[in-house]
């Protein structure tokens, strides 16, 4: 459980954030300059807010009125920085053990062997950070934070300085930390893809304020927040379960609350829980059931909401058996089809649209640790 209520001024910038979360992974989402980093620094104790209160797992880390400010080194918070911040004068092994050494013996929950195994670090132990690739550095940084047995992870855009391929390399390890250590994570990001893939709770920040906080699914299907999330990336999130592979068509069937979805073959076992992000731009709307279409996925629902916006583009939200689907249409189409709240409508989604990386994420996708590349 995490409770944050802080007020802080930095020159012109005012951070005034208040939220609570008991999610496994809480995403702090927002554009750069929204105050995300200030907020995590306040959590870590690297920044002392002017006013407020911070509680992690019923332990008060900061309380202005009570005069409590636990110094960073006593907070037991595993901070993973954007740039890794490994100690250049220590080997990977020494870096990993650094925090553990300061952890009271009774509270050491993680052993070096397990962490090395979990993060695939075995072949790096005797190197110095200067000879690691960006992805390897971040994995060592994750391990170093984990070995300090933290009560909370703070990950401040840990993937921001990596290219797309390296991001895909690290994400499974973060998912492992989430699924196998049980330590809650505060994950800072401005990437909808990462948030949708990792987080359970989402705190939307803009200009130092919390614009919205709640489950990722609920936040992502709110039309009024789309300008903050970003038009291209916005879209509803569906929890789904893998039904199986249709051998004849080589398509995987996913069962969601809104109906079944067909996607090109996923190598996931039946019963695996996945999360599907249906981007608003990938959704077409029909007012009658369609059969002579190439698109495979047609979800029936009713129009729940049409965003009031100027300009040629409109977002609408469909209620499909209790689940939300967000579609992005031209105003022209909305008028031509006579769409209005309460009207029956069908969301049409190409299977191919769900085929991009990151749109379907299982709760534990793992890559074998030995399939790694390293810097020369």
């Amino acid at each position, binding site marked *: 459980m995490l409770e944050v209520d802080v007020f802080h001024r930095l020159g012109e910038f005012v951070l005034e954030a208040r939220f609570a979360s008991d999610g496994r992974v809480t995403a702090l989402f927002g554009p750069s300059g929204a105050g995300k980093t200030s907020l995590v620094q306040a959590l870590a104790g690297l920044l002392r807010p002017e006013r407020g209160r911070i509680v992690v797992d019923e332990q008060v880390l900061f309380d202005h009125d009570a005069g409590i400010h636990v110094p960073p*080194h*006593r*907070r037991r918070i595993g*901070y993973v*920085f954007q740039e890794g*911040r490994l*100690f250049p004068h220590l080997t990977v092994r020494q870096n990993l053990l*650094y925090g553990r050494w*300061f952890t009271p013996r009774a509270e050491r929950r993680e052993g070096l062997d397990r962490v090395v195994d979990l993060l695939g670090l075995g072949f790096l132990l005797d190197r110095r950070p*200067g000879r690691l690739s960006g992805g390897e550095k971040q994995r060592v940084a994750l391990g170093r934070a984990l070995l300090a047995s933290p009560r909370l992870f703070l990950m401040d855009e840990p993937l921001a300085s990596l290219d797309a391929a390296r991001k895909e390399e690290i994400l499974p390890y973060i998912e492992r930390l989430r699924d196998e250590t049980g330590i809650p994570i505060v994950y800072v990001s401005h990437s909808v893809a990462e948030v949708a893939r990792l987080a359970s709770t989402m705190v939307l920040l803009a200009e130092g304020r919390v614009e919205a906080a709640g489950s990722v699914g609920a936040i992502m299907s709110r039309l009024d927040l789309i300008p903050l999330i970003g038009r291209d990336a916005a879209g509803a999130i569906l929890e789904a379960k893998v039904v199986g592979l249709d051998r004849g068509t080589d398509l995987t069937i996913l069962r969601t609350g809104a109906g079944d979805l067909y996607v090109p073959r996923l190598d996931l076992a039946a019963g695996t829980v996945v999360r599907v992000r249906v981007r608003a731009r990938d959704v077409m709307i029909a007012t009658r059931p369609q059969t002579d279409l190439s698109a495979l996925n047609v979800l029936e629902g009713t129009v729940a909401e049409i965003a009031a916006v100027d300009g040629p583009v409109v977002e609408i939200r469909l209620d499909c058996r209790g689940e939300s689907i967000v579609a992005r249409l031209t105003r022209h189409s909305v008028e031509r089809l006579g769409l209005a709240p309460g009207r029956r409508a069908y969301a049409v989604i190409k299977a191919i649209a769900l085929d991009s990386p990151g749109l379907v994420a299982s709760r534990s996708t793992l890559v074998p640790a030995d399939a790694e590349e390293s810097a020369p």
Partner: protein
Amino acid sequence: MLALFDLQPDEIVAIRLSLRVASWAVLASLPFGVLTALVLARRRFWGKGLLDTLVHLPLVLPPVVTGYALLVLLGRRGVLGAFLAQTFGIVFAFRWTGAALASAVMGFPLLVRAIRLSIEAVDRRLEAAAGTLGASSLWVFLTVTLPLILPGIVAGGILAFARSLGEFGATITFVSNIPGETQTLPSAIYTLTQVPGGDAGAIRLSIISVIISVLALMTSEFIARRVGERVSTP
């Protein structure tokens, strides 16, 4: 040619004394040097400019003035000198310890400058990272800051050592030129140039001075590079 290396006993005494004085000057001033550099690099306080000036003063003052100031302060009848002699039994005047003190004062600006530069080059975000991993300020300093500024400390120490070997003006003013006690290499060379037939000895000691200085500089380069390789992030 052979006569060049035929060192006289009193010349050997001067060489050994010089090395001892320089070593003590550097080792004893090192902790103060690191502390002063830390304060100048990291703290903001009233009078910081004054402290900075004071530290650098020996670099710009005529050495004789520095030596005279030491004599007035720490001589047997000096304000501090009398106190130290009576309370702790520490005497600087006309002792080799005084020569070491004069050398330390003269080398101090070089020592502090080198260490301060290396402290300012330390990535403070690494220190913050160490803090979040459970290290208190003292441990952060010992396990992160100190190893990272080691090249600067070594470089500063060797510079001060070399400066100390060449110290003449402040030393001769403060503790005079007593063979076996305060007569370091420069004083010995100076004395030899003042007596008839002293040329051979003066040249011998001069060459020895050059050799020691070159060795010191090479060692400094070597150590700084070795340590630098270890701590730098390419």
